[in-house]
């Protein structure tokens, strides 16, 4: 019998989720891939945190580590994931089962493929309710009806199969499924990536509304910074398995303290900005098997100097609740020719 997790008391200022020094590595034929290599962040109650970065920066791995849903060759090698006093990196599988879905749920990437094509969507949404809430099928189906209406799908469509739904509607089903057991935290992994702009706007509006109405905390993972600007309270920028900058959305956007953040924001075309091509970051994403020494961004950084190669910068505070991992914030760079 899995142990039951005690009901969680709501408390004032303690963050709901605190991740400290998280390291998740994958064993592959080529070597150890350090997908997440020392990540810290916190998620407050009712907060929505954006986890941004380019493909392969470890943002999805970080999220899956919280739920301990890693593939078999992946392992959390270090760090703590403190969810109201429980270390999710260490708790037993049985305890974790009490936390998954009832406390933390996830909207998986790729709504097109994340649903089982041969089961009615009603049954798919009911499954976690039956398992986690220990209710009978009938009560679960009633809850399914409520959930579907909550996400804007007609109750009767519970009898249909995934192929009868469009991409946007399938994403709504995924959201309904994530909300099935009234979780505290919802992790949304690229929830709008494969969708059209119009559907994207519909889904983001839905997520915002749900967050407000149900008082959810949310971790939104996306490569699209402009989506985060419109939906998140705070955000963390990841590069090569590490968080390079973290803070409120406004701080990160308006007062970026890491060159990568600045470059990444600058790489997005702005429909209200000038009619010129945005900047780009020269060079390639580094290998996570053999990451660059020192600051991982130094090979692509236009400000890098010797210190950046010699020493890895820590995630230091640069403002209130605003952190950045760059030597520029703590040291004055030598004059140009010394580089």
């Amino acid at each position, binding site marked *: 019998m899995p142990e039951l997790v005690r009901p969680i008391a709501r408390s004032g200022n303690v963050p709901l989720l605190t991740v400290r020094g998280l390291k998740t590595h994958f064993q592959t034929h080529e070597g150890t891939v350090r997908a997440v290599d020392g990540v810290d962040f916190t998620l407050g109650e009712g907060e929505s945190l954006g986890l941004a970065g380019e493909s392969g920066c470890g943002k999805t791995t970080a999220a899956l580590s919280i739920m301990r849903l890693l593939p078999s060759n992946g392992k959390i090698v270090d760090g703590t994931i403190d969810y109201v006093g429980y270390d999710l990196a260490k708790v037993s599988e049985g305890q974790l089962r009490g936390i998954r879905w009832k406390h933390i749920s996830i909207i998986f990437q790729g709504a097109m493929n994340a649903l089982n094509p041969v089961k009615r969507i009603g049954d798919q949404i009911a499954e976690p309710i039956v398992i986690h809430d220990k209710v009978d099928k009938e009560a679960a189906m009633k809850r399914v009806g409520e959930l579907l209406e909550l996400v804007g799908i007609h109750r009767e469509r519970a009898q249909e199969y995934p192929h009868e739904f469009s991409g946007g509607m399938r994403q709504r089903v995924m959201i309904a499924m994530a909300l099935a057991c009234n979780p505290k935290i919802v992790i949304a992994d690229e929830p709008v990536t494969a969708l059209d702009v119009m559907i994207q706007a519909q889904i983001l509006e839905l997520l915002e509304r749900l967050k407000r109405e149900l008082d959810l905390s949310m971790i939104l993972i996306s490569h699209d910074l402009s989506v985060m600007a419109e939906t998140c309270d705070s955000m963390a920028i990841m590069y090569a398995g590490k968080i390079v900058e973290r803070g409120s959305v406004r701080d990160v*956007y308006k007062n970026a303290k890491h060159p990568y953040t600045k470059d990444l924001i600058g790489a997005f075309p702005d429909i209200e900005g000038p009619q010129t091509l945005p900047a780009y970051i020269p060079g390639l994403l580094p290998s996570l098997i053999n990451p660059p020494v020192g600051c991982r961004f130094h090979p692509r950084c236009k400000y890098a100097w010797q210190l950046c190669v010699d020493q890895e910068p820590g995630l230091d505070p640069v403002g209130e609740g605003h952190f950045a991992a760059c030597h520029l914030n703590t040291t004055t760079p030598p004059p140009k020719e010394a580089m």
Partner: protein
Amino acid sequence: MAREPYLVLRDFRVWFEKRRGFLEALRKATPEYVRAVDGVDLDVGRGEIFCLVGESGCGKTTTGKGILKLVPPTGGDVFVGVPKNILDEYEAAKAGRGHADLETIRRQHSLSWKEQRPWTVPHFLLLGIVLAVAGLLATALPAFVSASAFHLPFTNGWSYIGYGLVVALLVAYFGSIPPTRPTPRITVVLGGLAVLLFDASTYLGLVFSGYVDAGGLYQSQVWGDQTVATLGGNLVAFIVAVVVGRVLIWNRLRGEGLEGIKIQGLRQKLQIIFQDPYESLNPKQSVYDIVAEPLIVNGLSRNRAETEARVEQALADAGLRPPRDFLFRFPHELSGGQRQRVSIAGALVLDPEFLVADEPVSMLDVSIRTEILELLLELREKKGLTYLFITHDLSLAWVLADRIGVMYLGKIVEEGPTRELIKNPRHPYTKALVSVVPVPDPDRRRQRIILKGERPDPSDIPPGCRFHPRCPVAFERCGWTAEEVVDELKDLSAGTPDEGLFAGLQSDTPLTFTLPAASPDAEAMIRRVIEAKAEQFRGLKAIQSIERANGGLRVSLHEFTEPELKGIAPDVKVSCHLFA
């Protein structure tokens, strides 16, 4: 438009026939179509970057592929690099003015023109009958005239060879009727067909003339005597059918404008870059193989050294420098950006004039997208390329395009210069699309117009303006049908005491429906509903009159038309009734 027109589309259509079961096909005579591209008019100037934007499934990719004939166009015209005066003549002829013949212009210049020349069953029947009769004559007639004729191999050998010639010419003639290309395969098929028919018909002739029993051919004396002649006849039939067939097909195609031969030459000028460089490159081919293939297929290179030189040049042009480092790498050894550069090199190696870029950066990481876009711009500067850039991302179109066309359900709804279209969108769909583009700045929250619902199925396009069911400002003449209004009334009355009034209600004609036994206050009720809900359920606006008829209540709707794409400001075209 200041630029000289390069690519011109007129009423361009690409329809896909819906697959039907055998019984369905028997029951319904007319096939149903998915109207992916349904009447697109487009003008792209030489050296221009034209962005085609729209949601997925709006037909933007199909348009790009249809221009290159990678999917067969259903109708309309595509002109590429056609001089202005001919385009003017075409427009004049289309409007019924001018002296030039529309069909002649289309045949000579339109890429999508094709003659209706289907290979039909009568063709085959006729060919069979002619050959059977000829076979009978050639073999049986001499036998009737002189029974001893077959014992003289020499004279009969000539008659066989003559017959082989007849068969070959007939096959070549009939075989060149269907719209085929003169490929080696097709001509060999013609030769084989000629041999087969020759043998079959001579055998039939021998059976009929009593020289052989059916099935007893190989035992008969006759066969032995005739071997040489038969072989000779076969050989002649084959060679003549191959040679004459090929010549006839070439000849027919020559008279038929762009179909066939010219399009091969034109294809070298028109190239495409696909969306996903992880899918579009063959993982088993080296970069050299991939980039050299167009040269080899088109027979444009005389020797290996020349091929290598041109491949290296193309790679360097695509920004893979030094090219020698990349020649013998395989796609898996390259990053996403480098792969897309290989795709671009593959398109550049033929020295094209026009590139269809189908979402070339949407699979790439944001930090490297601009590199690829800069490359495309640089190529335009250096080589004078023209682009049709297909994207779903309006903010990308904003920074890249000279002009933008917005597509919805297979049609262009608005077209204009980039700044005008983004800063002053006119069509309600463009307005909504521009409003929902996310902006990378938390301080600028914009008023978003979020459309309800999703795009309709392109096999069942709404009548009138195809955008009307989702349009936030649709009014009475936009295309509402009785069916839609009845559905709205049912939705509105669900859960109210009036629910029973509309249950089972159906439309009589596309524009009228009748409430059967209307209660005295039904009319007042409907008018009340219209008053209260018409801003939300815009179909209610279409109700023109409510009158009592045959004990019921007859509701008729306004008539509607489909809006046309027409100029409403300098260089701006919109298809919306608001601008009528």
